[in-house]
């Protein structure tokens, strides 16, 4: 069973994140890049599927030059190879354009399952998995907290507000994962050394079959009009508990009409 994992490099949330003043896109140079956390869970799930069913795990990343660091990390977790779509024409693509571009790039790879994170930590739209399924015309098995494959049938538990739905489909399919699904492994020293030799196939937009008139900032379906630092919250009151801390909060809640 061949599996493609979609891995996005995002700025480390522990560092200060900024937008570029000129084109209002994410300033990816301002902070360190890391693998989007949920994508590590996606990689882990792919590795577990491979361990059970055989096949190969391919990482697919679209991003700027420095995203190679995240690709190496993904390979050192145990993935076999990577496809890196890297082209200035893709800069500023929004969620739907990203899904379109990834769908096109997937057209150049053989796979039975596509696994991705259910949400990124930078843009956080949570739209890519669904839009990708729409573009590919494949079953949408998103927000999975458990995945089982039996022959050509795939079954997941889809996390919902009330619990979960059991969802079933025929392969190939698009699967997005939530944090509950597994515990990602740490790369071993041996795997880190091996990862250096694993193939990374770098593709331009054209190589990946992406129509550059449909991607990038100039063709985006959405546009950031302006941005600004959030106004600081008005300083609040902080008191030390002198045995009446609970009552004091109650006073505050009464004043604010919550009680």
């Amino acid at each position, binding site marked *: 069973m061949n599996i493609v994992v979609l891995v996005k490099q995002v700025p480390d949330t522990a560092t200060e994140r900024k937008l570029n003043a000129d084109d209002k896109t994410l300033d990816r140079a301002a902070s360190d890049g890391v693998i989007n956390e949920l994508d590590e869970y996606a990689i882990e799930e792919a590795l577990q599927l491979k361990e059970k069913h055989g096949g190969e795990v391919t990482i697919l990343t679209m991003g700027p030059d420095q995203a190679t660091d995240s690709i190496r990390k993904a390979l050192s977790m145990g993935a076999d190879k990577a496809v890196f779509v890297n082209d200035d024409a893709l800069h500023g693509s929004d969620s739907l354009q990203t899904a379109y571009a990834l769908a096109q790039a997937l057209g150049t790879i053989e796979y039975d399952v596509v696994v991705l994170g259910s949400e990124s930590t930078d843009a956080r739209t949570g739209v890519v998995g669904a839009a990708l399924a729409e573009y590919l015309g494949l079953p949408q098995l998103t927000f999975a907290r458990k995945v089982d494959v039996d022959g050509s049938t795939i079954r997941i538990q889809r996390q919902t507000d009330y619990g979960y739905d059991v969802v079933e489909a025929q392969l190939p399919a698009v699967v997005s994962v939530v944090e509950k699904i597994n515990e990602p492994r740490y790369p071993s020293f041996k795997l880190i050394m091996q990862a250096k030799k694993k193939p990374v196939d770098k593709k331009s937009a054209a190589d990946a079959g992406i129509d550059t008139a449909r991607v990038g900032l100039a063709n985006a*379906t959405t546009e950031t009009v302006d941005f600004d630092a959030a106004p600081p919250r008005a300083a609040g009151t902080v008191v030390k508990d002198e045995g009446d801390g*609970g009552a004091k909060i109650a006073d505050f809640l009464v004043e604010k009409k*919550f009680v």
Partner: protein
Amino acid sequence: MAEVLVLVDHVDGQVKKVTTELLTAARRIGEPAAVWVGDGAESGRAALAEYGAEKVYVATAELNDHVVAPKAELLAKLAQDKGAAAILVSATAENKEIAGRTAVKLGSGVLTDVVDVNADVVAEHSIFGGATITHARVRTGVPIVAVRPNSVPAEAASGAAAEEAVSVEVSDAAKTARVVERVNEEQGERPELTEAAIVVSGGRGVGSDDFSVVEDLADSLGAAVGASRAAVDSGWYPNQFQVGQTGKTVSPNLYVALGISGAIQHRAGMQTAKNIVAVNKDPEAPIFELADYGVVGDLHKVAPQLTEEIKKRK
């Protein structure tokens, strides 16, 4: 005036509060038309009328038998047939997916997790854990906007809420991911986390899997219970209650943080709360930077006293 489609969130015929907020926002843009999927529209109609829905399009529950895609077909068809000016949905995980697929079908764009939207469908986002405010718009086709619960205050305005059944021929392509079972996990009587007007959350400071100090306070306020990742990772509280970057985003009128330090990843999920109260024994805890009211002290003393005081003063 052009119609603005509002996808209704409901449970057993009860309209959720966020839908009344969406109808309020829709009135700024055009004429609100509610889209109801499933049974119970008759019992929900009054609430929709009260918040200005002029129409209620009703589609059958069968659309829920397959993941997301059938509802996207419904919205895309309605948007085209009615020449809609915009589509508004609540920013839940599933609705954002519906929004995304609908936008692909319509060749338009989607704005997610917005905290406000104006008459020209320019939407306000709060990003990077609340540190930056952006305004954005959709450049092509029918704008689709996913609005966070508790962001736009609901205001009543009467509407006709004229019911109209819509039949959609769901395509085979939209029937590939079949829901074979729905499992309800213990929710109790508490309000749903992302929708609740008040959320009380506990962190590592709670100290054990006995979360009753948090739950009792929540129940005295009619609030939902949340947890930090440290509490969830320790196995003290179930995963679906995690608030933050990798958990739920909440935007309640009141957020109470008990024994939570206020890490940036936690703030990402609660910073747009209108009022924040914190109890923490460490005066240097970053959560106090956000707090409208903070008490430096032991939550195991402060929270039970607060619970008692609330019961007394109610």
